[in-house]
């Protein structure tokens, strides 16, 4: 049952990735399928329960099977070929995995060992993070056992505030429990492995294999992100979905003829918004970019924009609706109220807390310092070379970072203090931001050009 369940999740994600990208590489399929499949399955579980039905592994599996048939049928109808065949037609190692060289081999080797070691750690230990024990994992156990989101633990106040978070993560763990998994940490492995493979695979679309391998090593080496990626809490997976949504959008900017990556970005953003509400901070700059490409360059139609925003926003919106519908029961778990008017009184304190957190090299290594250099390089690239991608990638990082500070500044906490929130959770807020800092470094015009030179020097020229 365990393997069948995981395979169905993979197939569901695979059918969506195929439909969106038409001819994805093998690595895109392997990296994205389980994460996207899990996102869709948990959304289905949520909708079923919102409609009054119980959540069970059999109902999830049956609906997944129907969706697999539907998406595969749509693919066949659209492209007149069986899903998966396009990937293996004229299969070449270089096209699917990138051109190998010694630098590539070292980076891939280190990345693989880091991911393997952290996966072993995740699977070795049972749940121990406080947030998982008091919120996500315990809530998932109750959903798996009682089949509903509003269950006895909520009525008896036996769970923490994490139950008010959008439920992708808890429903994902609940699904694994219903399949028979003993250790909830299996979900951490799904996201860790999925992220590394997807990041590399998507990056291969906007750069060369040397650059993709090097920057994949850099993102998986962000110390605090890696440390928390083996713990079953929501921050890591949210950073994974949101940063991949941005990278996927950049793939579309680089190859505008393939709109699949644009829609893939929307699907990843939807998953991110269905895991933590702060995802609106990632939605805002991406929605602005969509508006820019609709009205300024006219490379997107209004229909494209409506599709993107609807897909990206829908799960987040429906969860907020669920909270509103069940306000009498769920309100006690909502810890945060947002102040309508600007709260200038504590801005200085919030800025200092945020600044001190993000500048801590113990958490993020060299990431922030290199990014600060790249800000100047990106302005230069925009002014001299008119390179928009350099400036977009920097602007998104700055917007999301400042967005976090504004969000924290406007929070009115019911049972905690801002100092506590930033001191204990602040370092987790910035996982997505620091991953995107590496994306900004990698996509900077001058850095990309330098890697292009290095790559052509050390790789076998492509056969024409």
């Amino acid at each position, binding site marked *: 049952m365990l393997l069948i369940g995981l395979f169905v999740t993979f197939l569901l994600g695979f059918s969506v990735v195929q439909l969106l990208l038409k001819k994805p590489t093998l690595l895109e399929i392997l990296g994205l399928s389980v994460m996207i499949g899990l996102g869709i399955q948990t959304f289905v579980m949520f909708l079923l329960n919102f409609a009054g039905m119980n959540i069970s592994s059999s109902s999830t599996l049956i609906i997944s099977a129907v969706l697999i048939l539907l998406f595969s049928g749509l693919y066949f109808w659209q492209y007149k070929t069986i899903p998966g065949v396009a990937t293996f037609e004229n299969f070449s190692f270089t096209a699917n995995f990138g051109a190998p060289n*010694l630098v590539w081999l070292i980076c891939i080797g280190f990345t693989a060992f880091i991911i393997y070691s952290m996966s*072993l750690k995740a699977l070795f230990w049972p749940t121990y993070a406080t947030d998982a*024990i008091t919120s996500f994992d*315990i809530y998932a156990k109750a959903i798996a056992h009682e089949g509903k989101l509003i269950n006895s633990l909520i009525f008896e106040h036996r769970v923490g505030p994490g139950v008010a978070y959008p439920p992708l993560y808890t429903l994902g763990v609940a699904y694994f429990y219903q399949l028979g998994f003993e250790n909830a940490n299996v979900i951490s492995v799904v996201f860790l492995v999925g992220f590394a493979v997807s990041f590399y695979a998507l990056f291969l679309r906007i750069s060369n294999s040397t650059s993709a391998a090097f920057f994949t090593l850099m993102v998986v080496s962000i110390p605090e992100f*890696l440390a928390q990626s083996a713990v079953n809490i929501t921050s890591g997976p949210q950073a994974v979905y949101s940063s991949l949504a941005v990278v996927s959008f950049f793939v579309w900017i680089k190859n505008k003829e393939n709109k699949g990556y644009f829609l893939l970005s929307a699907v990843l953003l939807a998953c991110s918004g269905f895991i933590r509400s702060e995802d609106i901070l990632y939605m805002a700059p991406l929605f602005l970019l969509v508006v820019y490409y609709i009205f300024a360059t006219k490379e997107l139609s209004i229909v494209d924009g409506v599709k993107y925003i609807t897909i990206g926003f829908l799960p987040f919106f429906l969860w907020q609706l669920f909270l509103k519908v069940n306000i009498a029961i769920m309100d006690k778990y909502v810890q945060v109220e947002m102040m309508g008017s600007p709260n200038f009184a504590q801005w200085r304190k919030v800025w200092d807390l945020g600044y001190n957190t993000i500048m801590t090299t113990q958490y993020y290594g060299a990431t922030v310092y290199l990014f600060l250099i790249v800000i100047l390089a990106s302005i230069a690239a925009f002014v001299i070379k008119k390179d928009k991608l350099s400036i977009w990638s920097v602007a998104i990082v700055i917007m999301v970072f400042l967005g976090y500070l504004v969000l924290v500044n406007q929070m009115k906490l019911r049972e905690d203090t801002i100092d506590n929130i930033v001191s204990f959770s602040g370092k987790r807020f910035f996982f997505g931001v620091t991953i995107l800092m590496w994306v900004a470094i990698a996509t900077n015009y001058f850095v990309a050009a330098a890697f292009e030179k*290095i790559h052509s*020097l050390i790789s076998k020229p492509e056969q024409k």
Partner: protein
Amino acid sequence: MSKKNNKSNRTEAAKLPAKSTSDGVFLRVISNTIIALILIVVLYIGKTNNVGYAFMWDTLVKQNYAMVKENSHIPYLDRNEQRHGVSYKYLADIKKQTPEDALILMPADSSLNKVDPKYGFNELKNRTKATFFLYPRKPLYRTDTFDRAMLPKATYVAIFSGDGYADVPNPPADRNPFTVIKIK
């Protein structure tokens, strides 16, 4: 003469690509080696000069890898005990002896306070954590606002350090100091 020249030209032409290919391969090998060495030096400098990368590589990656390899024989449930201490063992024992629908009256704080805190039994005061390990069984706490109404419905009493028998209607003669007893 011209025939000879032609032949020699053909030979030169045939040799040229081979030479440039071998030069290209040689250049690539040298470039790969130099850039790979630079990469390793950069990674090494990063690891030795930054506390975050040192922690990432030495502790998270290498130490955890060695730890898992060394302890992979330990059963999963024992790993829970290693992480959560002896209070987990106590709760696991209760779980083993009770049905899924059990409502368990937990030890009073005064009983837990009698034991030296170094043993970690204070964790049993944490209602959410106890629920996490006992679920779907429910622990009931005497002083908790949400449990108060359910106390009369308790079906089991958790005996801790000999305390709790006062809540058992017909206590057994043989009093185990750490156990759980059915009362309904």
